[in-house]
């Protein structure tokens, strides 16, 4: 595996690299015409050649940024005059690998030549299973494959990806590779050994992997045969499958040969895209893996472009320079919808927003459950969702969102009932007009957070309660929560939260880092449920816990965020509730 990047480069060149934008459009036009004449030819070249005409659009939106010089009127005229362009193509084309071109060229008929994703931050590393960070994880998962993954067709329960997963007994899990010939981009074949070595690497404290704690109960990893491996845990570890999502095997021979740093800088995975180039704070460029084991990849190149400022990202989308942005502000929904080249794709995310009502601190007004309930009755969450989010948020009933695998669907949200709130306060002997509460809130961390916090304060103001909102810089906010120095209310978001334990054990036990709630009895129940492997039995326990939390009003339950994407019209992209922004099944879109 001498020079991976050059291998990447080579493939890149074969696929698109030697073509200028104009060439591409011309070729695309041939294909467009060609497809109508002889679709059979196309179908023969690559398996799913359903619509060759798509190319016109894709080529157009793809690389506006690359060669401005080519952005002349030629483009339009050429598209209308197929004769002319055939002529041109011969002149312009200086690619010696003409035959290769032809091979690779025609399948682009049903592919997008490039999707550029505008993303707020750079990856922190490209070494898998090392750092917990959304951006980092997304980029790595395009190069590598996850061991298992959340399945959108099964309400985001963990399902098979590289491996299937099976419970042997309370302490033993068995994983089986789904295919005996999954190859890394350099040809190395993936085996059970790969998983064992990486997991052991994670467990080695010296490597400082963030996942060390997450795999803590794992005691022993055993390779049964080339395709099968087993994990034994020291205690029942029901969320083990969730943890496995982040385990993304790396090629052992290559790793051994080049070492940690080089592996991180020149990653070689089994994923749908192959590493091409990574310029820190600028972009990550990936090329299509033509031999992806799972399915045919319909995007020739994926570029992640790091753009910290959301207005710049949105401008780039509107200018046609990039094809996908996440977190379109509510304010810009109409702008994007009105744009001919872009559309909105929105999905309720598994990330939840809430206001903790601190019940376990001396002197907190929320020591009394009636006051906590009163807050829930007094805030008109629907009005805030309509007024501030323009409907782009989903009200939560309890502490888990509706896409959480363990959600108790029977829980009904607190209705908006200010009179009931006043009654409860009276019962508790609290005069709302005397009540003054400080609420700590972040600013710019969650969608519309500053506005929502002010709105909540105003809602409570209507029944006489004075809420002073203290906005913090993000770091200060975390410090305050960890050190228990917030006001009696604090605003926080949590996610992706796809199963119960990760949310409830962490946010509703007294000693947890970001918790504002503690109740010894409930804590016992939570720990017990978290050690129950049998899914049905566990679910029963989680259902009960959720009821208690709801009744006990540990939070002011707010909403699930919506992940709002701006997507170019000619790109097919499906957002997912688990925040897994995945170009592996993106492709051209017929408009």
């Amino acid at each position, binding site marked *: 595996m001498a020079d991976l990047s050059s291998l990447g480069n080579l493939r890149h060149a074969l696929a698109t690299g030697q073509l200028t934008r104009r060439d591409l459009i011309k070729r695309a036009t041939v294909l467009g015409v060609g497809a109508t004449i002889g679709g059979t030819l196309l179908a023969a070249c690559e398996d799913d050649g359903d619509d060759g005409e798509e190319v016109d659009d894709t080529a157009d939106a793809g690389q506006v940024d690359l060669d401005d010089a080519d952005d002349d009127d030629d483009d339009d005229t050429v598209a209308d005059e197929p004769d002319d362009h055939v002529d041109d193509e011969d002149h312009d084309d200086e690619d010696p690998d003409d035959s290769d071109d032809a091979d690779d060229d025609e399948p682009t008929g049903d592919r997008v030549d490039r999707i550029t994703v505008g993303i707020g931050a750079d990856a922190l590393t490209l070494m898998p299973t090392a750092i917990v960070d959304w951006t980092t994880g997304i980029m790595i998962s395009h190069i590598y494959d996850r061991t298992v993954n959340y399945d959108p067709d099964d309400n985001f329960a963990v399902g098979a990806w590289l491996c299937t997963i099976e419970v042997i007994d309370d302490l033993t899990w068995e994983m089986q590779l789904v295919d005996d010939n999954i190859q890394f981009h350099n040809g190395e074949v993936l085996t059970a050994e790969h998983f064992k070595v990486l997991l052991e690497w994670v467990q080695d404290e010296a490597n400082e992997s963030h996942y060390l704690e997450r795999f803590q109960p794992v005691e022993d990893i055993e390779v049964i045969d080339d395709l099968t491996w087993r994990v034994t845990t020291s205690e029942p570890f029901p969320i083990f499958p969730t943890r496995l999502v982040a385990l993304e095997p790396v090629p052992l021979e290559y790793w051994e040969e080049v070492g940690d740093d080089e592996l991180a800088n020149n990653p070689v995975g089994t994923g749908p895209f192959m590493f091409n180039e990574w310029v*820190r704070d600028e972009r990550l460029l990936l090329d299509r893996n033509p031999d992806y084991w799972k399915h045919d990849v319909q995007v020739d190149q994926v570029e992640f472009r790091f753009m910290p400022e959301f207005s710049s990202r949105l*401008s780039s989308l509107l200018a046609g320079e990039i094809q996908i942005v996440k977190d379109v502000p509510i304010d810009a929904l109409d702008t994007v919808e009105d744009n001919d080249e872009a559309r909105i794709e929105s999905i309720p995310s598994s990330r939840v927003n809430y206001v903790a009502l601190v019940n376990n601190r001396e002197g907190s007004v929320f020591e009394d459950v009636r006051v906590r309930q009163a807050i829930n009755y007094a805030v008109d969450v629907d009005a805030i969702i309509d007024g501030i989010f323009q409907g782009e948020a989903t009200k939560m009933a309890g502490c888990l969102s509706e896409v959480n695998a363990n959600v108790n669907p029977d829980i009904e949200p607190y209705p908006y009932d200010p009179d009931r709130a006043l009654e409860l306060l009276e019962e508790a002997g609290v005069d709302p007009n005397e009540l003054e509460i400080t609420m700590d809130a972040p600013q710019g961390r969650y969608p519309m957070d500053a506005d929502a916090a002010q709105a909540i304060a105003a809602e409570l103001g209507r029944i006489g309660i004075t809420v002073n909102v203290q906005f913090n810089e993000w770091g200060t906010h975390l410090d305050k929560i960890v050190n228990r120095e917030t006001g009696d209310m604090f605003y926080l978001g*949590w996610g992706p939260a796809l199963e119960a334990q990760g949310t409830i054990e962490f946010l509703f036990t007294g000693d947890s*880092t970001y918790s504002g709630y503690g109740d010894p009895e409930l804590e016992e129940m939570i720990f017990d449920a978290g050690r129950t492997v049998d899914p049905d039995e566990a679910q029963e326990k989680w259902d009960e816990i959720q009821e208690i939390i709801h009744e006990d009003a540990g939070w002011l339950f707010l909403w699930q965020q919506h992940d709002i994407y701006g997507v170019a019209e000619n790109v097919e992209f499906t957002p997912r509730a688990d925040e897994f922004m995945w170009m592996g099944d993106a492709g051209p879109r017929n408009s």
Partner: protein
Amino acid sequence: MTAYIIRRLIHMVFVIFLVLTVVFFLTRLTGDPVHFFVPMDTSRANLEEIRERYGFNDPLWQQYLRFMGDAVRGDFGDSLRQRDSATGLVLARIPATLQLGAAALAVSLLIGVPLGIFSALNRGSLGDKAATLISVLGLSVPAFLMGLLLILFFSVYLGWLPTSGRGSLAQLIMPTATLAAFSVARYARLSRSTMLDVLGQDYIRTGRAKGLSESKVVWVHALKNASIPLLTITGLQAGHLLGGAVVVEQIFAWPGMGRLLLQSLLNRDFPVVMATIVFVALVYTLFSLLTDLAYAWANPEVRLK
């Protein structure tokens, strides 16, 4: 001369040492860095363990000595968030920032100085007022707003320039303009007032009286003398441009040091903050040394001492 430079270099090292000391304590005051480089579901016990392992629990002076011990060898440690050496991360950003800074400096000199001279020569005229107004307008709009307006107009509306990123010349235009807007005004105003100052002095009157051509008076004698304050401010501009670069790099997704510094400051990635600041201090002190040397060159009466 050589002795002077050596003395200045020693002074430079001293200043950088002080900068490091101050920044070390300032950053530690911002708070606990640990939450920023571990997942949110890390238990409190583990947080404590990590603090212990990284030495954040040690007395501050011990941390300081340890840091300084490494720093003198040029080792600022690894980034807390990224698995990379802080120095490496900073070095990788330098070209982008220098390119942007140099472009902005050149543009502001080329526009600001002539504008100021024009104003001075036509003092009180409509042209003077217009020139002042134009240059001051650059000061009146916050850089982030100007950046966005430029993007909306030239990229989204007209489609002439790429919105952001680095690579082509076209991508350099808007960040440079935004960054330069501020310094153009500074240069224009300074050159206006120094030119007025110089033009009022005896030797210029003498020159005129002796029948030297007006252009020679202005461009040779006056400008040479007016150049000293301009040099001073150029030294200071190095720092200002870097400060401005923070905002501009953010808006235009320019992969430079300003962005790195801002991010590492917000994320409490202390090693990266320190490494960046050292570089900034180095540039600043070097610039002021060069400025002083240029003084001597522009005006032999100035004695270096």
